[in-house]
Structure formats: C-alpha cells, structure tokens
C-alpha cells in the first residue's frame, strides 16, 4: 500500500510542479492545489498506514486489542485541507482580479515589476 501511495504522491508532486511552471494562471493554481494534495497524502502515508480501527476503548477495556490507527495525521490533514481551501479561494479571486486589470492570463507578460 505504501508503494502505491508513494507513487501517487510522486505523481501529484510532479504534476503540480509541472503545472506551476506553465505560463497560464489557471494552470498555476491547479498546480498549487495538486501540490497541497500531495503534501496531505504524504502526511497520511508517513504517519503510518494501519487498519486498526478508531482509537476508542470499548466500555470496560483498558488496553487496545489491536494497535489502532493514529488519529493525529488525520487531524493535521484536516487542518491543512481547510487552510488550503481558504488560500485557494483567495488565490482564485486574486488571479481573476489580475486578469481583469492586466488583461492577460499569461504569466510571462506579468513583468512590469521586473527591472
């Protein structure tokens, strides 16, 4: 399972970085989202893949019968998803506004600030 996920993460990173290096603003933002998905999956995989069920003790039990799944990576990912959702929403508005002001979605043409 780790190997499959590693491949998926690698593909997400590769696709994300490739899209970020394209010249189109929309591709840039899709690339950024793919990167953050890759990072989330990476946390999930690195935190250890275990099918032990939820870490909740049944009534009267003192120890877990099987090692439960680690809830912390999932909490981290949840936080990261919320953050990346908000940031992506902001970036979309920024890019739309830039498109309206500058009149192009070509990143190469945004060079007024380069001197």
């Amino acid at each position: 399972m780790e190997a499959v996920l590693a491949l998926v993460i690698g593909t997400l990173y590769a696709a994300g970085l490739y899209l970020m290096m394209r010249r189109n603003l929309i591709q840039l933002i899709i690339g950024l989202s793919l990167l953050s998905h890759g990072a989330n999956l990476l946390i999930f995989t690195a935190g250890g893949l275990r099918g032990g069920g939820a870490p909740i003790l049944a009534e009267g039990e003192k120890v877990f019968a099987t090692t439960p799944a680690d809830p912390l990576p999932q909490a981290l990912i949840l936080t990261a998803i919320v953050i990346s959702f908000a940031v992506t929403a902001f970036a979309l508005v920024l890019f739309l506004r830039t498109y309206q002001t500058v009149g192009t979605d070509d990143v190469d043409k945004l060079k007024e600030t380069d001197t």
Partner: protein
Amino acid sequence: MTLLPSLPITIPLAGAVLCMLFRKSLRMQKLIAVVFSFVILFTAIGLMANTADGTIAVMHVGSWSAPFGITLTVDMLSSVMLVLAGLLGVSVSIYSCFDLDDERVRFGFFPLCLILLMGVNGAFVTGDLFNLYVWFEVLLTASFILLALGGERPQLEGSIKYVALNLLSSALFLAGVGILYGMAGTLNMAQLAQVVQQGDRGGLVTMVAVMFLMAFGIKAGMFPLYFWLPASYATPPAAVSALFSGLLTKVGVYSLIRVFTLIFIADPEFLHNLILIGAGLTMVSGVLAAAAQYEMRKILAVHIVSQIGYIVMGLGLFTQAALAGTIVYLAHNIIVKTNLFLVSGAVHRIKGTYDLHKLGGLYKERPGLAILFIISAMSLAGVPPLSGFFAKLSLIIAGLEIEAWGIVAVALGVSLLTLYSMTKIWAYVFWKPAPENLPDLNPMPAGKWLLFLSPMVAFTVITVAMGVYAGPIFDYVSAAGEQLMNPQGYINAVLGGGN
C-alpha cells in the same frame, strides 16, 4: 504568569475584532489600532522582563501537558522578536494613520495589520511545529491581502509571484512536517529535539532538515530562493513595505534559527556549512542587485536580501558569539530597515515619486528628514557608533574566532557595497540639486507632519541608543545565544524535569 505567553496572540486578535466592529468609522479603527499596538508592545516588554534572567515561560494550551497539547514557549530569542514586532506595530500603525488613503483603510487595512501581528507573534511563541505552520498560514493570508489591497497593476503582479512562491514553500514545509512526524511520532519541538538526537537515522534527518531549509529559506529570502521579494516588496504603499520587510522575512529567519539550533543540530558539518554558503551568496547577490537599481524604494527592497545574508551568517557559524551577533543584527536590521522604508514613504509623500533621477535637493528643503535618513543609512552600512557597527562587528569577530576567513571577507566587502547603495540614495535624493522643480505635494500642517515623523524619530533614537548602550545589549544577547546553544534547558522547561 501562566497565561502570559498567550497574550501576544490574543491581544491583536481582540484588536482586530474590535476594528471590524467599527467598520464604518475610520477614526475609531485608527484609534483602536494605535492603542492595541501599544498594548502589544508593553505586553512584549513585560514578557521580556520575565524571561531576561534565562527562565523560559511555558504555557500548555488547554492544560494538555506537553507533548500532547500545543505548547507556547517564550525564551530570550522569542521575547526579543516579540518586542521588535510590537515596536514595528506601533510605528506602522501611527505612520499609516497619516499616510494611508481612506480607500485602503475602509477595506480593512488596520484589522489586517493586527491579524498579521497575531500571526507573527504566534510564530514567535509557539513550541509546536505544526502550530508554526498554522501561524505561517495566518500571517501569509493577511500579508497576501495587504499586498494586493488597492489593486494597482504592479501590486497585483507582485502579489501573484509572492502568493505562488509562498504557497510552494508552505507545501514543502507541510511535507517536511509530515515526514518528521512519521519519523519521530511527535511535533512538539522540545520532544522532537530529544527524539531526533537519539538513535541513528542517518540521511533521513538531513533530508528533512534540507526541506525545512528550503521552506524557510523561501520565506526568509535566502539565495537562490528570493526572487519573489524584489518583485513584490516594492509595490505596496510604504507602510506595508515597512511592515513586510520588518516582520515577514524575519519570521522565516526566526524559524530557521529555531529549528537549526533546537532540532537539526546533529550534523553541523553539512547543514550549517550549507547555511553559511547560502548566507555568503545571499549577501553578495542582494547587494549587487540593489546597486543596479535607480528607484529609492526598490533599492531598499532588494537590499533586504543582502541583510538576510548577514543574519543567517551567524546561524551558519553556529557558535554562541555568532548567534548573539545574529540576534543583535536582527534587532538592528528590523529597526533601521523599517525606518528607511518609512522615510522613503515620506519622500514619496512630498514629491510623489521614488525615482532617483527625478528627485533631488531634499536636504535643502527638508533637512530634518535628510538627517533621519542619513543616520539610518549609515547605521545600515555599519558606521560607528551606530547599532549597525556593533552588530556587524560581533558577527565578524565571531567569524574570526573560528577562522572562517571566507565569510568574513565577504561580509566586509558587502558592507562596503552597502555604503555605496546608501550614499547613492543620499547623493541623488538629498544632495544633488533638484533636476526640475517638483512641487511640494505635502498638504499636512506642521503639527501633523511632526506626528507623522514621530515613528521615524523614535527609530533613529533607538538605533543611536543601541550603539551607545552596546554593553548591556551584548550582555543580554550573549545570554540569549548561550540559551540557544544549550537546547537542553528548553527541552527541560517544556517537558518538565530532567528526563
């Protein structure tokens, strides 16, 4: 006492909420912002007084004891950074009360500033790596909006570069956090420091360390990751540039210092030398890029990069004296650089341009402003007896002590080029006769003008005072450097007892 470390976060939040409640009244917003930034500054000074004897203030949020909950820790480095952030908040909020157009204030400039301060303070006090990531996102989101607020074309273009590269850096940071968690099973910095040092994990630790170096390096503006900085920092109003140059890159530097003195200290041969080489290249490339510019604000913005090189140099040398030098340099740089940005804003206010070719003769017209500029500029270049001289001196002595001749030579050479850039601004803007008679655009009456200049006067006094009182300041930062070089104290303070 136990609640004290959380105040730098909660006070700005309260201020931001209050500002939002008075959304319609610009005067109230200005008043709230100024009052709250003073409160933030005094809280920070209180924290500094509490930690000056070397105690580390620890707070376990929600009483979840470490390493299970989120810990807030304030040591000497954090408290210095908090005081500096407070100073910056006060000066920028006073300055923007007079300088900023109503449009930007109406769209929430002041609440955003307070949120930015909250994020920055949060990053300075947190003792948890994932929490650091969250604070980074808080301050980044506030900074994205501050940068784009106003919606002028260069601002939007600069924002896109800034947003894209900073989100890339956040993704790297997050990935590093994930791998580190998989490896150590904790994200509490103190426990991470313990776990990472036990047992031989070989290359994996170094690899994660380099990921953090990349992520924080982008945020700090280190070579070769700084290309977003000149494009974006020179586009917003001077108040925002001042706030960013003083706080945002410095949060990156602070995080570098934190993780590379606490967690990744097992392999200084490779990691700290890598940082040192990066520091040298950062200094040189930043100062050369600044020398090629002919716009006052742009010279200052590009110049931030070269100053980051100096600050990181101390971390690369990785001795107690060098870390002490780094902290002095951080303090000196935040104060002086902010002041230069504010002065450039005042020049823009009077003449309506930043172009060195169009400006001139300001020494004759505004001698007071010229004096404020030249003191800070000379301090930046490292002329005695100002703060910059002692900051550079301490870094260079620390370099000589461990015989790092190369970086010392680079630092001295770059210092000379800094002087060149600063005298260029001085000669073009203040000294040479005005090329054409630009009208004086400043409509402020004299009394208001003095209030507008008051943050700059305060910063100028501080940079002179830091030079005059170099002795006590050095006692303080040497103690802070010692605290950083002995992470066991930090670990014990957080985890409790000598385990």
